[in-house]
């Protein structure tokens, strides 16, 4: 894992509060698993509440995976259920916070992370329901794509996973909240200037330099 990804995960871990029910999307958000404290319940949409990372020396349970296909363990108080109950939990708002990756995210909180027409369309999985129904969606993503193009846009160009669903975006460069007035800068990476951040971001940013955090 790169230092930038480590920085994102360390900052993201602060979003999770004791007692939270948490869902971790596939990819970078899965890395948050080992950063979480003991007083949270991790939900995985394949039918388990109370996932724990599997210790290296723990015997493999072939019937126990997370939604990304990794073998996991469970913590005391865990429960298993079918796929309907799992998504009832999601749609009914019982999962408090979810972390997802993004191809694109925009200043209105629209999220695109499931399909690149003509290039990548493996399906949607549980992303659409998690994005639409979990009260707090935190996007964890690189600030720019591998060609350096902004991923944080004025308006998503790719098909959206859900409209107006994102609460907060955490990249290696910044923490930004989606507000009715647009994207508000909350924290900026150590050593980065606001003008450099703006140059790397397509969406306009609301900045109050007197109240800016560093991470």
């Amino acid at each position: 894992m790169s230092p930038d990804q480590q920085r994102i995960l360390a900052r993201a871990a602060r979003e999770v509060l004791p007692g939270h029910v948490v869902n971790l999307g596939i990819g970078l958000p899965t890395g948050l698993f080992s950063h979480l404290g003991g007083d949270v319940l991790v939900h995985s949409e394949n039918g388990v509440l109370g996932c724990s990372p599997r210790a290296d020396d723990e015997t493999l349970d072939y019937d126990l995976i997370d939604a990304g296909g990794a073998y996991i363990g469970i913590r005391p108080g865990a429960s298993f259920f079918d796929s309907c109950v799992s998504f009832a939990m999601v749609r009914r708002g019982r999962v408090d916070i979810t972390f997802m990756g993004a191809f694109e995210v925009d200043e209105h909180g629209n999220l695109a992370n499931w399909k690149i027409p003509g290039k990548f369309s493996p399906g949607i999985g549980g992303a659409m329901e998690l994005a639409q129904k979990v009260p707090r969606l935190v996007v964890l993503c690189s600030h720019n794509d591998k060609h350096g193009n902004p991923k944080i846009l004025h308006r998503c160009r790719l098909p959206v996973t859900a409209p107006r669903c994102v609460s907060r975006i955490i990249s290696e460069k910044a923490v930004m909240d989606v507000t009715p007035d647009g994207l508000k800068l909350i924290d900026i990476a150590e050593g980065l200037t606001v003008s450099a951040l703006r140059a790397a971001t397509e969406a306009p940013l609301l900045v109050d330099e007197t109240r800016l955090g560093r991470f």
Partner: protein
Amino acid sequence: MTGLISKFQSIEEAVGCIPDGATIMVGGFGSPGTPFALIEELLAQGQKGLTLIKNDANESGIGIGRLIEAGRVARLITSHIGLNRIAIEEMNAGRLRVEIHPQGLLAEKIRCAGAGHYGFLTDIGLETEIAAHRREIQCEGRTWAIEPALYADFALVHADRADRYGNLVYRATACNFNPLMAMAANETIAQSYRVDEPGSLDPEAIHTPCAFVSALVQVPVESSEQGRRKHVS
């Protein structure tokens, strides 16, 4: 044979009643809960032109991935096939028709069939690409999409334990779509590692009551070997 004890069948007999062109639900989320032995028997018997309904396409070389690679699947109704490169290639080449649903809606469409309903109303996916394929109605001042129930001719499910009557118990994350599919299909064929005498399972712990199960096959634990990754990162 008729009567309660007749649900216990050989795997050849149980899978042998599936015709070409059948619509078949297959349990499992990734490997756990995938009825590998029943799928292998289907592969061996040669049924073709199948429509499969499964959360995913397993991975290439295992489970329904083997049926897809053998050209036996005409259509797949699923939520995500990202772990099966060959299924994606078959889809892109136009040899496999793939219908994608959000995972929770797929589960609910199956549950709805199992409960004997026509369908349900939902706000999931409004204002997204999937909305284009659905009818919407106004109700209580809001917009809802109509999601019809998803029925099937057969369901192939995997249980951890069962009794001869066909009562089923699933284990851990091998539960997933299995109990939903067991209710939604016209004929449900269950495989189980253990099949005990009626009375051996705690009645309160039974996930699928035997009334939903048509045929029961006992399979060795080793039949799921193909879905087990020995080297874990």
